[in-house]
């Protein structure tokens, strides 16, 4: 019953929309660009490239996202659609230096 309800829920909701892709780089435990401007109301595919040899965790309470990125690895995080506003994010493993901001407008 549970599985059936789950399947019914999943099926019509699988997303198909095309996404806006944006890149973000981590180097020396810092994000660049540190500020990303994105259109409000659109889903964004954020590709984070970690150029440090150590792993990092992309995290944002405002965006409700949390994703581990291996050292010298790439990771994809889908964000939004966002309401206009500012959405800070940070690298949990290097919180002091790894800070960034997404501005939706």
């Amino acid at each position: 019953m549970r599985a059936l309800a789950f399947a019914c829920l999943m099926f019509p909701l699988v997303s198909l929309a095309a996404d806006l892709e944006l890149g973000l780089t981590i180097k020396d435990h810092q994000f660049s660009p540190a500020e990303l401007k994105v259109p409000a109301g659109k889903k964004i595919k954020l590709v984070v490239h970690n150029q440090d040899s150590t792993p990092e965790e992309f995290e944002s309470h405002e965006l409700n996202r949390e994703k581990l990125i291996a050292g010298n690895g790439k990771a994809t995080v889908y964000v939004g659609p966002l309401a206009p506003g500012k959405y800070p994010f940070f690298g949990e493993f290097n919180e002091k230096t790894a800070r960034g901001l997404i501005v939706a407008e």
Partner: protein
Amino acid sequence: MFGSAIIVFRETLEAALLIGIIAAATRGLSGRNLWLAVGVGFGLAGSLVVAGLTETIAEMAEGAGQELFNAAILGIAVLMLGWHNIWMATHGREMAAQAKSVGNAVRTGQREMSALAILIALAVLREGSETALFLYGLAASDGSGRVSMLSGGLLGLVAGIGAGWALYSGLARIPLRHFFSVTSALILFLAAGMAGQMARLLIQGDLIRPLASPLWDSSSLLPMDSVLGNLLHLFAGYEARPSGMQVLFYVLTFLVILFGMRWSRPRIPQVA
């Protein structure tokens, strides 16, 4: 040192609290400690493997491998916690009433414990792999503060295990009469919270739609990084900005397990 202690503490805490609750909820089942140890052991070994495969897992499913992997772990955990609660609704009462395992409960109890050992292995694996990666990153960096960061990590690990132990001993003090209600309620909220997290991961990997996002925003009232927000997040899956889909997963899981518990509760004849 303090920073790394907090990160490791947070990662350890989730698994440690789950183990504390499960250990308390399975009080009186024979072979419990052995099963718990087997679960933790496999989880630790698995977390090293998963940490080593991070890159490979991340690249699977067009970049959504990590989300799928973690969502699958959470899904299995939700099923097992739900099953445990329904099982306890049937057998917990007779175990409490007789203060020892009934013949039938002993047999199904072993099946129950082996399922819970898998659950614990998965929880340790999920949190452990992140901790292992973080500590590996510390060890690999050549900063001068390496030793103090690593000892901070160790401190966090010990504190996390301590918190799990404290929860276990606290729960063990609850009188038997209320005991199963308390542990069942804890597990019910825990399972619903995990289902919500599962939805969040599937949305993050663009595998399902968020529906309303966010459905509400209570971050000014009770922020996620406050102590209370954190505790509620750990125990009851609180989110300050949940998407509609997360709430849907949460509520459905909560209701399905709750009704399962109600239906399977044995009818005890009233003694006049």
